[in-house]
């Protein structure tokens, strides 16, 4: 079964159309990437899937169920999101413990903090961070908390919005390894938005290249490794990223 089906998805902010007829399928258990320059509409697609933006037409199916933008069922236990900026995605006045317990409280799940302890272990955070405030932690630690929060409700699908681009290079590697490990342990499906092709080749099975709101090509990791893209823009993006690494 496919985890995400997008069919002719159009997204517009007021009168400006940002995404034009995007269609793609993400299989269950797969790790899929959306790549493209900033402004190409990749984050917008992510927001439409998770429900932060309801201004779209077309069809979104999650695990075979159609999503109705006007009458959204609660999909919080199916899909969760990790945001780009770990400094902005944690409530500044809440301890790690409160942040992580909140999803359980919302869904009325009784738990004596076992799940919090378990998730802190899973994301490799020591228990002494449990009652800290966000300002008492580093960016990487915060992003681990954000990942733990996304996994509290045991979702099957994780939407990742440039989860490492706000972090130091060394911390980026840690977070990427953590994500890879978690995906293996918990059988997660990933939909990752990034502009960083090395991240894609490390973490993803397939990728869609976006340009100006259109999906220009869907390629596999092998194609990415060999640089065998069919579309001229994908080639350009590939060479630009190669160049970046030489420099």
């Amino acid at each position, binding site marked *: 079964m496919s985890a995400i089906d997008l069919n002719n998805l159009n997204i517009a902010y007021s009168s400006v159309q940002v995404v034009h007829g995007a269609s793609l399928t993400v299989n269950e258990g797969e790790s899929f990437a959306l790549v493209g320059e900033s402004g190409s509409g990749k984050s917008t697609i992510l927001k439409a899937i998770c429900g932060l933006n309801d201004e779209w037409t077309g069809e979104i199916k999650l695990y075979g169920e159609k999503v109705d933008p006007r009458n959204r069922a609660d999909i919080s236990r199916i899909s969760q999101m990790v*945001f*780009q900026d770990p400094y902005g*995605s944690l409530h500044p006045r809440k301890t790690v413990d409160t942040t992580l317990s909140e999803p359980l409280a919302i869904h009325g799940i009784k738990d004596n903090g076992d799940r919090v302890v378990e998730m802190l272990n899973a994301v490799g955070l020591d228990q002494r961070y449990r009652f800290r*405030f966000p300002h008492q932690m580093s960016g990487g630690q915060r992003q681990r908390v954000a990942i733990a*929060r996304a996994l509290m409700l045991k979702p099957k699908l994780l939407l990742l919005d440039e989860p490492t681009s706000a972090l130091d290079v060394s911390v980026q590697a840690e977070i990427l390894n953590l994500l890879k490990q978690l995906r293996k342990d918990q059988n997660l499906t990933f939909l990752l938005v990034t502009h960083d092709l090395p991240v894609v080749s490390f973490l993803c099975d397939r990728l869609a290249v976006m340009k100006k709101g259109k999906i220009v090509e869907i390629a596999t990791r092998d194609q990415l490794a060999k640089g065998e893209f069919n579309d001229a823009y994908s080639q350009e993006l590939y060479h630009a990223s190669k160049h970046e690494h030489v420099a």
Partner: protein
Amino acid sequence: MSNMTEWLLSDSPTSKGQAFAGRAWRMWLSLLGNPLAITGLIIVVVLVLMAAFAPLIAPYSPIGQDLQNRLLPPSWQHWMGTDELGRDIFSRVVYGSRLTLMIVLLVAAISAPLGLVIGAISGYFGGWVDKVMMGITDIFLSMPKLIMALAFVAALGPGIENAIIAIAITAWPAYARIARAETLTFRNAEFIDAIKLQGASPARIIINHVLPLCTSSMIVRVTLDMAGIILTAAGLGFLGLGAQPPLPEWGAMISRGRAFILDQWWVATMPGFAIIVVSLGFCFLGDGLRDILDPKNEGKS
């Protein structure tokens, strides 16, 4: 003691209580480092103690008349002198602190939560909810405070309860504006998006996640406004629309003393002095609180 401090300042607290106690302790420490704020705090604490123990502190009854001893200048018998009915002014000022404190606390307790909730709802939902609620707020905001309070008191009848209601009704729009402005700064923040994605209802988001972030600026603003509330209450009292005789309300006392201000200056000056000191106290405290509660300072101190 050092164990206690260590426990409070631990960077890896072991319980929720310790985490919050630690944060409160850090704020207390930075408050201690601000002499003006401490001055304000001492004045406010003295006011509270004075109100609580008024019968023990005041040497005379605040309403007992003694016509033999009217309009006496300050002396060892009557520290602040006596008024036109021979009542001891010091005792009246001490008992008056109860009225002042009651007015300030009741106004804050009515108007701050009201403004907070209206502002947060308005800012969070936006759109037509925001337009309607802010329209109403603007109507109230556009009327001068004292005039509006006067109109209410005129309609409801003079008296201290009505003065409190009138001041509260004129005070909340400013708080609604602040709460809305605060809410707008983080309604699109990712931590609010994250909590939405977890399936939280708007009520839960506003109460648990939006309001806690508005409260610190609200506390600061309310503390700073307390001086204004005291002055408005005194103004109403002065005009004879607040506390009624023989209640020892400071504004009303000044009003009575006005008749003798040239020959018996102490009758009007002593309660006026009390108003100034308490207003200043709240201003200093509010200023200090602004420094330590400012979210931009969070984690730096």
